[in-house]
């Protein structure tokens, strides 16, 4: 299969307080079409920087980003991007929020609504069309935010810790919900998380990032078959993989802490 997304030799350097900071160094990712790929690493390892670069919101210091064989450095609107905060506009109804991406692209409102309504019904937002974001729970708001991203209709979707602010139970429900959506749409997904369980449960591949300067320390393919169910989370292969990731990560967290103490 051809690579859908290629991040080739990307680095990012910042100046802060007159000192040069390496946020990311020589990072390369090759992601096949339709894969669900997670990125985990200690905080401050440049995961968000990577996403900003792929989304075209920030230029890299070196390297390039290819999508469908085309250089997309500095080009916005090529990927769907969802942040931890739901970023729903508070003065718009849920429906009007969900069609925002289409509205920006100039899709007529009627057509956009006609496309959004069946999806809202299918993915558990029926009856909330005319509610305002404030009236919804955190989980429901994230659903709306994700549907907005899906309806923006890009093949590639970046999810930056979308469930980080949810409680454990809602989170599990949302993970299953996300898997259902992903299986229906088969988009290529890049998913940043701190949660090892979440990464294993959802992903085909997991990239482990090292502490600052961020670079890829390991790429692990999750061998579990799909569709996955919650019982997979207690299977021996799951536990084994979790142990491996824990070892890799705790080493990085130690390094990150040590470097913080020095500086």
């Amino acid at each position, binding site marked *: 299969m051809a690579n859908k997304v290629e991040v080739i030799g990307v680095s990012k350097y910042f100046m802060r307080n007159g000192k040069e900071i390496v946020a990311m160094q020589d990072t390369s990712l090759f992601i096949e079409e339709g894969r669900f790929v997670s990125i985990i690493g200690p905080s401050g390892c440049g995961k968000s920087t990577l996403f900003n670069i792929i989304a075209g919101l920030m230029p890299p210091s070196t390297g390039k980003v290819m999508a469908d064989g085309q250089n997309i450095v500095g080009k916005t609107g090529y990927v*769907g991007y969802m*942040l931890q905060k739901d970023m729903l506009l508070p*003065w718009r109804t849920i429906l009007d929020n969900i069609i925002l991406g289409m*509205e920006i692209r100039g899709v007529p409102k009627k057509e956009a609504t006609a496309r959004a309504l069946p999806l809202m019904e299918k993915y558990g937002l029926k009856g909330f069309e005319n509610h305002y*974001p404030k009236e919804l729970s955190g989980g429901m708001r994230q659903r709306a935010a994700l549907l907005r991203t899906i309806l923006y209709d890009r093949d590639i979707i970046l999810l930056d810790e979308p469930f980080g602010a949810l409680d454990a139970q809602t989170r599990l429900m949302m993970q299953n919900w996300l898997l259902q959506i992903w299986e229906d749409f088969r988009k290529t997904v890049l998913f940043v998380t701190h949660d090892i369980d979440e990464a294993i449960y959802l992903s085909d591949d997991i990239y482990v990032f090292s502490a600052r300067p961020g670079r890829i320390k390991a790429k692990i393919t999750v061998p579990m078959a799909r569709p996955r169910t919650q019982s997979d989370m207690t299977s021996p292969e799951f536990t084994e993989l979790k142990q491996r990731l824990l070892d890799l990560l705790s080493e990085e967290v130690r390094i990150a802490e040590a470097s913080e103490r020095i500086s």
Partner: protein
Amino acid sequence: MASSLTNEAVASPVGIEAAEREESLVRKERPVIQDPEALERSHRRNVMWWRIAVGMLLIVGWEVFTTIGWMDSYYWSSPSMILQTAWVQALKGNLLGDILYTSGSTILGFVLGTLGGAILGLTFWWSRKYAEVCEPYLVILNAMPKLALAPVLVILFGIGFTSKVALAIAMTVIVGAISAYSGVKSVDADMEKLMYSLGAKRWQVFTKVVIPWSMPWIISSLRINIALALAGAIVGEFIASREGIGRMILYAGTILDINLVWVGVVVLSILSMIMYGGVVLLERKLMKEFNK
């Protein structure tokens, strides 16, 4: 209850009596329902009656003290005299026309000044450099007493309606601009980021995020601005005018008609209260729209 009876019956007949006695004791007591809303309602009613009573007391006291001579009615006039003078002025003078003139220039100046100021403040979103170059001048203009400009504006725009509107605009425009600029500065950067990631152009971010986001700040300037606009219009009439409540007060003062001065003061108070009430209503409506 049926099940509890049979259970007790199995245990002992004495147990039944004890249970019934207990039940009847419990039943006798009426539940006390805590109703904070009813308490709040009665509190509000109470406060309203007290307010009315205080108002009446002040007016009656004013009337009585001026009648028995504890207050000099030459300076303080009296409610009955004010009412009488107002009646005469309404019939023989041009009280209604003056009220329309003053409220007209106030409202027009308020709308133009607030709107113009808000638009100016919103433009600061487009360029940080432009905004920060302008910022100190905005602060200076805000600190400057605009009323001191009144003679210049009257010379510029003549003694007619225009100069009053111009003064009301001068009073309100900077407040409007500063409020809108505060709103613009507080726009969530992540919200803008999301819009750009959805492929939005700058003007789309401006119309879909920046303007609605800043609305609560703009709305909060309305209350201050209506009072400022009225002050501007009246000072404009003080400087030079053929009409308006301000001119009426100035004229009454020069001919030592203190009663008529008081009529002007009372009319202006009522006018200002009505306009303030209108703005509060408008504010509520707008806030419902933009501050979900």
